[in-house]
């Protein structure tokens, strides 16, 4: 092989990779499912509340046991009733950095909502496996040290629940 061509292989490869990445991103951005969140503060009907809550449950606790899914829904509803948090479901869910899945966009990508919808309905009907929790987090992941100052109620699946 010509020495000149051999020298070119690596930069050429790099270029191809870059171009590929650009095209890939372009393609995907154009095709992301666009599910827009409801406006915070607008009163939503019961059906809308179930959908909103189910989406958060699926994104936050999709792999948790059913009880843990109901518990995440209950935390949202406990926050709605608490003076420390906004007074609407959408306000609580879309509070900046309140939920990881809203910050990283997972909440708009979840597709299987069947179990989460049942869990959301149970939470809206009053079931609260945490008996008043306002916070939950996964102790295996890095979290703000502040959160550990809250009083811990229990652990369900991979989530710790606290007041």
């Amino acid at each position, binding site marked *: 092989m010509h020495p*000149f*061509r051999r020298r*070119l292989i690596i*930069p*050429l490869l790099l*270029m*191809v990779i*870059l*171009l590929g990445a*650009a095209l890939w991103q*372009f393609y995907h951005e154009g095709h992301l499912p666009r599910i827009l969140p409801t406006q*915070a*503060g607008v009163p939503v*009907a*019961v*059906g809308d509340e179930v959908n909103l809550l189910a989406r958060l449950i699926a994104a936050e606790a999709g792999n948790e*046991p*059913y*009880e843990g899914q*109901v518990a995440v829904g209950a935390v949202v509803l406990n926050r709605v*009733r608490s*003076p*420390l*948090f*906004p*007074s609407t479901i959408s*306000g609580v869910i*879309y*509070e*900046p*950095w309140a939920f990881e899945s809203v910050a990283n966009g997972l909440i708009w990508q979840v597709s299987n909502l069947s179990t989460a*919808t*049942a869990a959301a*309905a*149970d939470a809206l*009907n*009053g*079931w*609260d*496996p*945490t*008996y*008043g*929790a306002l916070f939950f987090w996964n102790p295996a992941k890095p979290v*703000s040290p*502040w959160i550990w100052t809250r*009083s*811990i*109620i*229990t*652990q*369900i699946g991979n989530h710790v629940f606290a*007041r």
Partner: protein
Amino acid sequence: MIRKITTLVLALALMLAVGWGLWERANRLSLANAVEAGGQRDFYNLLSYVEQSQVSMGKFLASSSPRQQAVHLTEAWNQAAAAQHALSQLPTPGIKPINTSKFLAQTSDYSNYLAQKLARGEEVTPQEREQLVRLREEMKRLAADLRQTENQVAAKNLRWSSFYSTRMPQPLKTIARFAVPAQAQPSPLDGFVNADRRLQTLPSLNYDGPFSDHLEKPRPLGLKGGEVAQNVAEQKALTFAGDASGGGSYRVQTVRTSNGLLPTYAVNLVDDRRAGVTVNVDVSKQGGEIVSLLNTRSVDAPTLDGAQALDRAAAFLKSHGFADMQPTYTVRSGNSQVITFAAKKDDVILYPDQVKVKVALDNGEIIGWDATPYYMAHHDRQFPRPKLTPDEARAKINSGLKVEGVRLALIPLPGSIEKLTYEVKTKLDDTHYLVYINALTGEEEKVLQIIDVPGGQLTM
């Protein structure tokens, strides 16, 4: 030749890459501007609502007519609530201004409480007035803190959108720190931190509203006796789950303890015969009562209707010692029916003492039970005899409404208050309203609108 072609390809690729980068940057900037606008909007809303509510509270103190006083309190109530909402949507990374949020919610709620009092024709006591003066002073200080932050915002030292940028990887960060040594600067959010720290030390605020401090940790009133041992709780859970499934047999998988408002043993059971069916039963530590049951199995196509489900639920309640319970509302949830029951005493419906039962419509099994409200609220009550007759209560109803039924009911009101009322079921156009008339004074205490949901039905 080859050399020329490769140069051309490389040049083209470079141009594409640069073009793509510029395009991405333009996108990022327009998004950053939108986020910045959102942050600015929330911040200036917060500042102006805090100022306005402080002014409204001042006007209340300056006014002498109860009617005007009520108007100013209503304004303060709305403005403080709007301030709390704006604060909660403001991006403040690393700080959770929960004390500020609580202060705004409480001030809003307290203004509402005083306005309601005036609307009922009662007077604001000197102590209550004093309390409001104190809250107004705090509101003024908060406004001053926010105005300091506003200086930073105006000087562009504080960019809300900057809080959303992706964090630099650690090695790059270290290099950057060598290149540009960091200077000790006050954080732009110090105003929020200081305000929040100060508001944490506020004395507690007690009044008859939902955010009163004395309600922060309600105690279960319906639990009697001492703490039960874990094995006793397990036995109770097994028996109850067996009954709920109509004679099934379970074994204990795990037990965890839970120290919420109602401390429990949470017993996780698996079905011996049906693979994959698990049931969670919560047994109260005090007294060993069954507080909650959730069967997590999926329910197949229904073979029962709502009325049959109601009969099952009522029979199940009776067999577990809840003798006098009245079904009040029933709603279809997927392939199951959720029925709410309220306790009854001397023909009075006790709405605080509620139990919910969920029936699977495929085989009639009880797959859900929630007695939390019942055990939180139930106690021996001595309520007075009603002074009004049902017909007198009926006469108090707005004449435009069609009355469909009247009965006595004890209802919970904000601030953990219970009132003996006549519950009047009425209809206006095609909407049902429940109007509650105080059985002693004849005052209208509360109006509930029944929202029609598919399969939802009021049983009365």
